[in-house]
């Protein structure tokens, strides 16, 4: 009898243990390898301490690998991930297809920067919560600009950039007036060139989805870019992306660099940059047409439709994108390391206002409008991209053509004619052009 009782008790306790184990939810989170995301992985104890029933498993991957993997998984409903890190390009497309779950537990959604939140909202529902946002701006060497007898305006024009670059360039000393992206890719040179083209009044498509590379505005954009880079850019610029230009700037080889606002913390870090104490910031240039050449991007957290763990995923995203998380980072690593560009309250914080690039980042983000990216009306959403599934492929092809033009393999006219032909062919194939 005793042994029977012991057996029953044992079985009950085993069953209890088993039910405890099954109550634990494991979230698989796909994320990119950048400083802010890696920092979050180190701070998750704050979340798991308050949610002991949720376990977090991270899959960190390089951006392009992650994009391919996550796209395959979500398109086939593979169910490998419960939380995704995705960019501003994917959110409108995936949201419209019903591949994402609307977010319900985001901390104070009204506090999100309108420019950022606008790009993540589909049919009035927030489909992804921004973890950090970025725009682009001019980073320049204060000492070189001063030595050239110039003063960088807070909101320069492209003519200012060209003039100052010309005065800074000293090829004998391997100092180049301006470093810009030239490496082919929709997220590489085409992010920069598309944003720049907005400030020249160009657009990818007219209201009927007709490609616009045969228009004067695109010719002005490409001619300007090629001439500027030929005169004042570094050698081999057609292979330079973000990282290559960052290395050049940090080594003191660039007078100016126009790129992502997230670079500000890298170029001002004395551990990695030889010019950390000589960097100034300005808004991305314009041409007096009412649009600046800056882009808008946010790495955001989203939930794939079909996950079995939606409730836990909602909780996690609520925590990771909250004001509380921002304060947690500030308390552990200082305000300069807080994920930027997502919340109005962060920029109202007097402590954060002391960070040298804070104001310029906010102004850059606020001056970009994904729904009205350029001077003329467009049928698409996106500042440095066009939020349609075909864009990544088309823009990568066009990027290769423009990169070849930068390398001197073809003229500006030839490149534009090829870009027009490629885009027209693909858009016709995709059914946009009847």
């Amino acid at each position: 009898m005793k042994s029977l009782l012991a057996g029953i008790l044992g079985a009950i306790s085993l069953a209890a243990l088993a039910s405890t184990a099954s109550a634990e939810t494991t979230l698989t989170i796909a994320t990119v390898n950048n400083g802010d995301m890696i920092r979050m992985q180190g701070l998750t104890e704050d979340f798991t301490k308050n949610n002991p029933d949720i376990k977090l498993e991270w899959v960190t991957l390089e951006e392009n690998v992650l994009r391919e993997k996550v796209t395959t998984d979500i398109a086939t409903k593979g169910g490998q991930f419960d939380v995704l890190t995705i960019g501003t390009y994917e959110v409108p497309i995936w949201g419209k297809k019903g591949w994402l779950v609307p977010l319900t537990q985001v901390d104070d959604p009204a506090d999100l920067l309108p420019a950022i939140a606008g790009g993540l909202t589909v049919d009035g529902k927030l489909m992804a919560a921004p973890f950090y946002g970025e725009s682009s701006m001019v980073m320049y060497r204060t000492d070189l600009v001063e030595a050239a007898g110039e003063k960088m305006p807070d909101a320069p024009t492209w003519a200012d950039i060209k003039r100052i670059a010309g005065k800074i360039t000293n090829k004998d000393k391997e100092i180049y007036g301006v470093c810009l992206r030239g490496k082919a890719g929709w997220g590489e040179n085409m992010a920069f060139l598309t944003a720049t083209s907005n400030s020249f009044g160009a657009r990818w498509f007219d209201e009927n989805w007709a490609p616009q590379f045969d228009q004067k505005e695109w010719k002005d954009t490409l001619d300007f870019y090629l001439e500027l880079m030929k005169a004042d850019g570094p050698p081999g610029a057609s292979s330079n992306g973000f990282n290559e230009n960052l290395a050049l700037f940090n080594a003191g080889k660039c007078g100016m660099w126009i790129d992502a606002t997230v670079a500000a913390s890298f170029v001002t870090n004395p551990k990695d940059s030889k010019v950390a104490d000589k960097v100034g910031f300005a808004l991305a240039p314009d041409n007096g047409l009412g649009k600046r050449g800056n882009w808008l991007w946010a790495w955001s957290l989203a939930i794939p439709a079909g996950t079995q763990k939606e409730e836990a995923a909602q909780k996690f995203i609520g925590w990771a994108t909250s004001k509380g998380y921002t304060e947690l980072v500030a308390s552990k690593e200082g305000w300069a390391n807080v994920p930027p560009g997502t919340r109005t309250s962060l920029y109202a914080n007097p402590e954060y206002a002391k960070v040298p690039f804070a104001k310029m980042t906010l102004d850059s983000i606020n001056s970009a409008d994904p729904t009205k990216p350029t001077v003329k009306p467009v049928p698409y959403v996106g500042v440095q991209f066009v939020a349609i599934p075909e864009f990544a492929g088309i823009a990568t092809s066009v990027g290769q053509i423009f990169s070849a033009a930068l390398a001197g393999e073809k003229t500006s006219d030839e490149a534009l004619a090829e870009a027009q032909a490629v885009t027209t062919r693909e858009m016709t194939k995709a059914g946009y052009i009847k």
Partner: protein
Amino acid sequence: MARAVSTRRKLFFTALSWTIAFLIFFPVLWTVLTSFKTEGEAVSIPPTFLFFDWTLENYAVVQERSDYVKFAMNSVYLALGSTLLALLIAIPAAWAMAFAPGKRTKDLLMWMLSTKMMPPVGALIPLYLVFRDLKLLDSHVGIIIVLMLLNLPIIIWMLYTYFKEIPGEILEASRMDGASIGKELIYVLAPMAVPGIASTVLLNIILAWNESFWTLTLTTKDAAPLTQFIASYSSPEGLFWAKLSAASTMAIAPILVLGWFAQKQLVRGLTFGAVK
């Protein structure tokens, strides 16, 4: 005089071989050196070669951030598992083609090789859907099968080339003595083909170890091998080259050591049948 010319020629070709070998090996050496630099030093212009402050910091960070042993063990399971499975299929197949060829054997061999000509991405979605439905995503079994299928044509070709060198009369003699097909394969053919099988195994392990497209796509965490470990340190926005180099060095170290010890077999395997 003739001897002087020949010595000079020898010296020239030795120097040339070493130079070419060094140039080929240089990227690996550069990766290893970069792994001991700070992030700032890793991208310094002009680059530093040997005279920099050597640090183990990157290895410490990588070790702290990732479970290297788990990724490495997965690589071992996948490389060995796929190789053994492939051998089980390839030895009988190569035996049949070498000693009992049919009319279409040559065509069949060419067809098998042609499957390597298709870009893998062409099969991505169908395979992903099959894996999803069979619950094979992120499983060792699933990725072992894919790696086996991927390398099977090369293994069959290599074994076929080796087996062709073995006189068929020996096998005939064993048959005359009453050996069954199984015994003929295990006790007669296999011992004679050991060097060939060994180099095939080595090459296949290296190919499976380095395969990245399918291992990155079909695994997530439980079965993820070292290719994913490396991919987690690459970033288009942020200079983490020293950490990436440390991760790469850790990922290639085991296979580099294996390759070093087995280079004789590898060279033989890769050049077999090339000079006749």
